[in-house]
């Protein structure tokens, strides 16, 4: 225990507000778990210390007959009664927190469909569904209700800083309520092994003020604004990208891959793993499987030079 503790301290100091950290408590649900966590940690440390301390004491203590009574009490109270009371109390507390953090409705409903290895995101609004992918923005201090499912295998939706996770299971719809209370860019992850590139299935959960969020959502709802003579868009169509990808407002209506209508407005590329820059975009197209092995999207190594640059410029204009 001693050796481990020393090494933890620098990590502790660095990490409490890491973007994937449970204890960042940027969501109301995560905050409830954080309260539980500190009590449990302290309690566990004390109990571990007492038990090991008792063992050390028992080992060292000189034998004498009065110890039999101590031993008897130790087994009955220490072994049976106190643990029962403690775990019973913890159970009740845990169940109450569970009851409090689950909700059936929210201020906002977002459907997320897990795919291998990206996220299909659909905001439900009175005006209709707004489709995007791989990035979720949320208004602060509002409960977002996520309706989760998956088409292929089991995935799991997790933004540790905001709250716990929920699995996305083919054939079922599960729900998760998250109430962000701090703005910021928080990390989302897939938390159920889904084969292949599971490790590279991430997303950003960006929490903003309500009006900023409304502006963003309205922009997302709008179709893409593409100039009629955009050479990059022609290349996009020539290469057949529209068979898999959708750009609303055009005849690219492919449902297989992520919606690209407002691709460049996202912070990251490839499902939360690379910064959205022209260089990464270019490499993504030509060396797809080096960037993310085993995915369905084929690489286009023959796209080079000017042709590639125009395509990338087009894609970077989709904001």
């Amino acid at each position, binding site marked *: 225990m001693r050796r481990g503790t020393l090494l933890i301290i620098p990590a502790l100091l660095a990490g409490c507000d890491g973007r994937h950290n449970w204890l960042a408590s940027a969501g109301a649900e995560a905050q409830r778990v954080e309260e539980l966590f500190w009590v449990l940690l302290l309690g566990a440390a004390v109990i571990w210390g007492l038990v090991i301390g008792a063992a050390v004491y028992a080992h060292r203590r000189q034998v004498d007959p009065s110890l039999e009574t101590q031993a008897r009490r130790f*087994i*009955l109270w220490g072994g049976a009664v106190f643990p029962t009371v403690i775990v*019973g109390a913890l159970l009740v507390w845990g*169940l109450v927190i569970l009851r409090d953090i689950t909700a*059936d409705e929210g201020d906002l409903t977002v459907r997320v469909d897990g795919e291998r290895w990206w996220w299909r995101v659909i905001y439900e609004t009175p005006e209709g569904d707004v489709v995007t992918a791989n990035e979720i923005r949320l208004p602060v201090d509002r409960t977002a209700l996520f309706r989760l499912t998956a088409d292929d295998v089991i995935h799991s939706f997790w933004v540790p800083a905001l709250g716990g996770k929920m699995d996305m299971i083919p054939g079922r719809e599960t729900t998760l309520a998250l109430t962000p209370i701090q703005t910021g860019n928080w990390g989302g992850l897939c938390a159920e092994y889904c084969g292949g590139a599971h490790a590279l299935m991430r997303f950003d959960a960006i929490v903003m003020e309500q009006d900023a969020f409304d502006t963003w959502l309205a922009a997302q709802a709008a179709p893409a604004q593409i100039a009629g003579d955009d050479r990059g868009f022609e290349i996009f169509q020539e290469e057949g990208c529209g068979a898999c990808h959708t750009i609303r407002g055009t005849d690219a209506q492919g449902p297989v891959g992520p919606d690209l209508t407002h691709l460049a407005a996202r912070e990251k590329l490839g499902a939360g793993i690379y910064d959205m820059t022209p260089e990464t975009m270019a490499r993504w197209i030509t060396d797809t499987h080096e960037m993310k092995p085993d995915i369905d999207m084929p690489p286009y190594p023959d796209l080079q030079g000017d042709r590639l640059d125009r395509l990338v410029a087009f894609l970077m204009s989709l904001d």
Partner: protein
Amino acid sequence: MRHGSDKQPRHFTAPGDAPRVIDQGSVWILVAAPSIWAAHFLLSYWVAAIWCAKTGPMASLVEPRWIIVALGLICTALIAWLGVIAVRRYGGVFVIFEEITESSERGRDRFIGHVALLLCVLSVVAIGFTVIPGLVFATC
């Protein structure tokens, strides 16, 4: 060659045959209390799961809750009865420093009764734990 300490109890059948369920000397009393816990646990789980699946995700749990509590009380009563058997028929005692090492049928019975009694207590506690969720949750 017969001696009192080793005399067969009246109802005991020939050695080697599977002991009958509630005869003196039967080992089934050891597993009876935890089995009752298991039955209560499974029934509670199934009642709640089927109720929630068939009535919908927001169904009120008031009715199944009372089923679970009622089952819990019945099972606790059954276990209490087992505890009484353990004490009376087997001579079980509640001790910590158990040294029931007498090499005789009486010793063996007392040991079985003692362990059975401990298991009765544990099983009742575990049933109590199972009832708590029914009391905390009002809807599925």
